[in-house]
């Protein structure tokens, strides 16, 4: 699960700087440059619909990365992700509504809410593992949702809270292209944070305690501390994603944060491929685009009229089906497919590596 990507040979490092650089081969740097140019140019070529789609993908990426950090690397299963996004969104909404707080207060406030909630969500992980931990996160999710619902009814926002767009130096952030770059920046920052965390002591500690807790503890890694750290960092990132979500949508309502949203995020990291940040990004893109794909497919069918009204149900069924297919046939996710492709080209014209020490 944690195997490194294949590296080119012939690159000799003569200093620490080169050794720990993120991009180590010319091909990697070149392809990243090309990708960056494509990303920068995209908003000027794309329709508003595609722009919105891209924004949604970036927004989902932040949440997917944080969940991948928690579940894919540190191995702490969390089914309460939607509750954390809701917490961030509601913090933003409440502060914006009650005291008209600007975004540079609501954003850190959301992060703070995430930290506190992360601590609470993480406490069960000190005693529980696996299934029981997942169940405890599920229970806490429902508690958060209940509290959000209570706030809505008690304060009269039964249809939801309207959030004004944030202001930058007097300018309101409403333009689609501007949002694109803001959310792209958010996704990139999240990615960099995750990459660097994983290369640091915390990342190694998480991977160790994922594989074998007792051995990690015996090696001097404070398992309790790192588990809580994983929850706290992941939750604060998720809450920030919730804050961005509130501003982007302009509207916060508790119904948007149901269990299905949690499942969607879990699906993102599974479909993408557990234990890989690339997987989180691929999964986020796939799951976000998926409903639109289904809708487009539906339009190609002859009796569109009958099913068009049921698009919600079709989405549900298709989502379940795709998730099942991935779990049965491709447990390593999209990243697994990607690695297989890579291997195919790397090993070509051979088909597979021979057994080590085979006497043939």
């Amino acid at each position, binding site marked *: 699960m944690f195997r490194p990507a294949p590296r080119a040979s012939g690159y000799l490092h003569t200093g620490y700087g080169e050794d720990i650089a993120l991009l180590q081969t010319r091909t990697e740097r070149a392809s990243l440059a090309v990708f960056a140019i494509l990303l920068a140019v995209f908003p000027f070529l794309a329709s508003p619909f595609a722009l919105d789609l891209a924004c949604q993908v970036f927004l989902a990426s932040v949440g997917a990365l944080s969940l991948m950090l928690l579940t894919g690397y540190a191995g702490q299963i969390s089914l309460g992700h939607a509750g954390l996004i809701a917490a961030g969104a509601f913090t933003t909404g409440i502060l914006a509504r009650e005291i008209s707080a600007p975004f540079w207060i609501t954003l850190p406030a959301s992060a703070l809410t995430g930290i506190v909630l992360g601590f609470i969500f993480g406490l*069960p992980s000190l005693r529980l593992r696996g*299934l029981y931990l997942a169940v405890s996160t599920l*229970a*806490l999710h429902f508690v958060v949702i209940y509290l959000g619902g209570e706030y809505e009814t008690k304060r009269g926002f039964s249809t939801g809270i309207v959030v004004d767009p944030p202001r930058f130096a007097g300018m309101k952030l409403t333009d689609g292209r501007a949002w694109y770059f803001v959310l792209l920046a958010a996704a990139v920052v999240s990615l960099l944070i995750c990459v660097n965390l994983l290369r640091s002591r915390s990342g190694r500690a998480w991977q160790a305690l994922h594989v074998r807790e007792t051995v990690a503890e015996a090696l001097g890694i404070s398992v309790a501390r790192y588990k809580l750290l994983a929850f706290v960092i992941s939750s604060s990132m998720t809450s920030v994603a919730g804050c961005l979500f509130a501003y982007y949508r302009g509207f916060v309502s508790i119904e948007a944060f149901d269990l299905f949203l949690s499942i969607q995020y879990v699906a993102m990291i599974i479909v993408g491929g557990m234990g890989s940040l690339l997987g989180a990004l691929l999964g986020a893109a796939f799951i976000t685009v998926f409903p639109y794909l289904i809708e487009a497919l539906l339009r190609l069918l002859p009796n569109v009229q009958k099913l068009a009204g049921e698009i*919600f149900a079709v989405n*549900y069924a*298709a989502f*379940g089906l795709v998730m099942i297919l991935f779990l049965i046939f491709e*447990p390593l996710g999209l990243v697994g497919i990607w690695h297989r492709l890579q291997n195919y080209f790397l090993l070509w014209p051979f088909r597979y590596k021979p057994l080590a020490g085979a006497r043939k």
Partner: protein
Amino acid sequence: MTRLHHPLPAEEEGDRSCSTSGIALQLVVNIIVLGSIYALIACGYVLIYRVSRVLNLAHGELMMLGAYLLLATASLFNGHPAIALAAAVLLSLLAGALVYVFLMRKMTGEMVLAAILTTVALGILIRGAVLLIWSAQQQYPAQALGVANPSFSLFGGARISFWSAVLVAITIAVYGALFGFLRFGRWGMRMRAAGQNPLLAAQRGINLHGVYALAWCLSTLTGAFAGILMALDSGLTSSMPIIGLKAFPAALVGGLDSLAGALAGALIVAGAEVLLIYYVDPLLSDVVPFLVLIAMLVVRPWGLFGTREELDRV
């Protein structure tokens, strides 16, 4: 969701008997009814978990499927409610077997988390399919069957509806049958053996796939009972799976691998819910089971009657 009668009786001319004992009695009746619902659903979770260590999070949806199947058979066997009921139950049994043979069998041997997520995905798939076939509007299988649901007065002024009473009776019967089967039946013993040590069971010639399929069939059967009876009592919507999810803490509180625990847990959760709704806030209804769950996880994660090693197994 169920027709629990509100403790304050309807105002009758010249007779305002709002005695505290009358209220208390109604609350007790409500707890018994809700507890029976949770218990009937919870034993489905316990059966599958105990035998194969898989948490079937699609149980609520399968339960709902049973109720919708009743709708279908009701229109098919118009005028013969008994046949329609029997057909619906049989179809649900078949559904459980099919789910195991075509889906869950492929997940044996994989990570437990993967199996659980597969059930989640299955639940979502079923929900979508049900919405597609039957639409989201409220249905009334009782009307379709042509049966009524009168309310009865029990002693002390408490009221209970007909199908709720049937549900309580069936829950007791189901639990009695399951206890007997697991303790004394040949396949029941094989199920217990497979649950404790699947490898050894296979080495002793026990067909694991058969045992697992049986567990799934029994679980879907009891779930179908619950779904059908609830639908007959108070109608059917596509949000029935929520009750399935609320019954899950009942199973966990009692201990995921203990039938007796499921019964105890169901009564505890139902008690907490009914009392808190009445005395504190009706909105608490959906969150109370999970509050009880959190409390249990803090104090005694393996539940009241569960085996302790369950904790470290996963």
